[in-house]
């Protein structure tokens, strides 16, 4: 597969996941804020921006519509949902002959709908409609990929993009909501805290799954344990590190079948590549830790490590498959003279 094509499939998948995630947390924030005091709601908005790794607006935020535009409806803001959808669709268009027609149609339809909407009006009158459409499309796209795409390299690069994006997003969410656990682990929760935590779980589509496991008793450390260490829930960090690991392994197996002659030194055989070493270490440290150990190390530092690993995996994959250095000394064309 062309390196550029692999790269586009990866980013298409990442951007769509990001759009879906942002839509989900924004949607929840709008609902949660209804039950909160103005100051708590404002704190909630700031936390949301932090969790999305968005620079806070320069001047003090006096009303929340600025934040809503910044991460939702502003085409000039690269973090906004509409920008993520456009980026996902741009990448999909690059690889139209690689993805199924059904997949293309879903993403194209959402993009055309957004292009035809007056986004300012939509943001003030009915922001929920955008969130619903984006989330539905993200789910449909995922289902269609499952149902219509061959499990080749292209599929693996899409899986990789989504899992990396999810692991990063959930890490940032946990850091934004529970950094205080590192300082004052015994603070008594208030009713507003419960509202916030329920929102956090819902924003990761995790509320129901959490309740099945822990009942509806919301406790910070349980929430952390669930979103960080659960091996079975598809938005949990450990689950996604496992997906990254398995996907990289599958890619290595495929590559091992092909003779790699032209590539410079890094891994000239079915050895464990740099990317898998990074994710393997990170996965092991979560798999063989319990909550107590995590809290001792400090939650913030643990989730930051996860994020750092994801970034390192991203660059290692890029060095291995996308923009690898070429060792020209082994390029020996069979003949340089005209036939």
């Amino acid at each position, binding site marked *: 597969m062309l390196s550029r094509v692999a790269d586009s499939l990866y980013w298409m998948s990442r951007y769509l996941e990001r759009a879906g995630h942002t839509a989900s947390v924004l949607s929840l924030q709008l609902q949660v804020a209804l039950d909160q005091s103005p100051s708590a709601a404002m704190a909630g908005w700031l936390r949301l921006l932090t969790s999305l790794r968005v620079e806070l607006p320069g001047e003090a935020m006096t009303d929340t519509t600025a934040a809503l535009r910044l991460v939702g409806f502003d085409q000039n803001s690269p973090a906004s949902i509409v920008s993520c959808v456009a980026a996902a669709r741009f990448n999909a268009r690059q690889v139209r002959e690689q993805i199924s027609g059904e997949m293309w149609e879903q993403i194209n339809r959402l993009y055309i709908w957004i*292009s035809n909407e007056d986004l300012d009006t939509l943001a003030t009158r009915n922001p929920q409609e955008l969130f619903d459409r984006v989330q539905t499309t993200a789910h449909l796209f995922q289902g269609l990929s499952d149902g219509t795409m061959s499990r080749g390299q292209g599929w693996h690069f899409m899986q990789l993009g989504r899992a990396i994006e999810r692991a990063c997003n959930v890490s940032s969410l946990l850091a934004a909501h529970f950094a205080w656990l590192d300082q004052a682990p015994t603070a008594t929760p208030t009713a507003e805290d419960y509202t916030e935590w329920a929102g956090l779980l819902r924003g990761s589509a995790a509320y129901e799954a959490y309740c099945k496991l822990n009942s509806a008793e919301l406790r910070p450390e349980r929430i952390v344990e669930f979103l960080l260490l659960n091996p079975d829930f598809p938005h949990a960090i450990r689950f996604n590190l496992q997906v990254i690991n398995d996907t990289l392994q599958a890619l290595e197996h495929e590559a091992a079948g092909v003779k790699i002659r032209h590539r410079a030194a890094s891994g000239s055989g079915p050895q464990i590549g740099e990317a898998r070493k990074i994710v393997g270490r990170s996965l092991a440290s979560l798999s063989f830790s319990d909550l107590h150990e995590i809290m001792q190390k400090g939650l913030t530092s643990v989730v930051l490590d996860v994020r750092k690993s994801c970034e390192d995996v991203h660059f290692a994959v890029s060095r291995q498959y996308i923009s690898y250095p070429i060792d020209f000394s082994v390029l020996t*064309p069979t003949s340089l003279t005209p036939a």
Partner: protein
Amino acid sequence: MYIQGLPRPHYQGLHQTLSALGADELRRRQAAADMSFLHQGITFTVYGDQRGTEKIFPYDVLPRLIPANEWDTIQRGLAQRLIALNLFLKDVYHEGRVFDEGIVPRELIWSCKHFRREMRGVNVPRDVYVTVCGSDLIRMPDGRFAVLEDNLRVPSGVSYMLANRQVMKRVFPAVFKSAGIQPIDHYAQSLLTALRALARPDIADPHIVLLTPGVFNSAYFEHAFLARQMGIQLVEGRDLLVHEGVVYCRTTEGLRRVDVIYRRIDDDFVDPVVFRRDSQLGVPGLFAAIRMGNVAVANAVGNGVADDKAVYAYVPRLIRFYLKQDPILPNIDTYLMEEADSRAFVLDRLHEMVVKAVGESGGYGMLIGPHATTEQREEFRKRIIADPRNYIAQPTISLSHAPCFINGSLESRHVDLRVYVICSGSVDKVVICPGGLTRVALKKGSLVVNSSQGGGSKDTWVLSPGHDRESIGGAL
């Protein structure tokens, strides 16, 4: 379609069936066709539009019919033409017999905007300069077809020919059973065969790629479509690199050697080392690889000299010179503005002439005398006098009409016909897909059929021998 108000004989069956079908049913089928194009995303990009909008190529449900005997003439005529043009290109870039014997003035070629002196003495695989040619035909007032122009660089539009047929089969399935319409689905296979034939003979399984400028190009849909149909990789310039005269593409498994490139980017952008320095679309070093014979590129670089609008006037003479045959298909009368007599003649009659800039295509740089304002005509007069080599003139030819289904009723619109001609591995082996892209000037009275300027298209049915008369009918 009509002769003095009555349908031409080969249209009679279709005419009767359509009358029976009624406007409402026809409208339903047109809507079905439009939806089909929209869902498949069969679109082109409109330049100059801020948002880079992609539009559906407007499509008319009524097919155009070409009887077998007329097609036979077209086919023989275009094959003859392409053979001569390939021989001409080799001559221009090698011996130059055509100049020595005074058939074509040397200055005409060397002053041509698309002449590439870098190609002089370069051997092209199998001497095939033109692998794919798109020739535009029009029907003359006397009923004969004539060639309006040849496109020997990167002709486009063939994906619409194929897509139109697919949609037509879905919308009017029953008619295909008995009508004796010649199939066109094998086009991609023919093209692949022709490309494969360009690879060096010692390469058993050549690696063939389609080089596109990328998603911002107006024909990107076509590039992706053809790559998928042929089962070859769609690459951009940044996917390729050249090392010691060999072309490679960068894959997730390492570098892979490339043997044949079907390129859909213009000469100017092929290689920034040799041609335009600012090109981001091409591949540095590609031209060196071509010179060394390590990669075959179709169509060859420098073909623009043979589809220059002034050189066009010489094509009948080229056919006589190289093949010792009379041209089967006529040209349109063409006046070279460089020649003083012709210039004086045309400048007196600008209001009845079509003036074209020789190096342009796509309907740009053109004056249609009868439809132009006085200011526009004066503007062209100045331009012609300032740079006569750059202009030709032709009498305004009323393109023939075909019935189109517009806003719920049948209306007559001007049409032309683009036929795709493939040269398959040796100069004398020409393959023509029995069909083409009928382009329609959708604006009433307009003579411009280009998709970039409000043109549309319709399916073109070439009938098998014995199916010429009253054959299409019954269950449409």
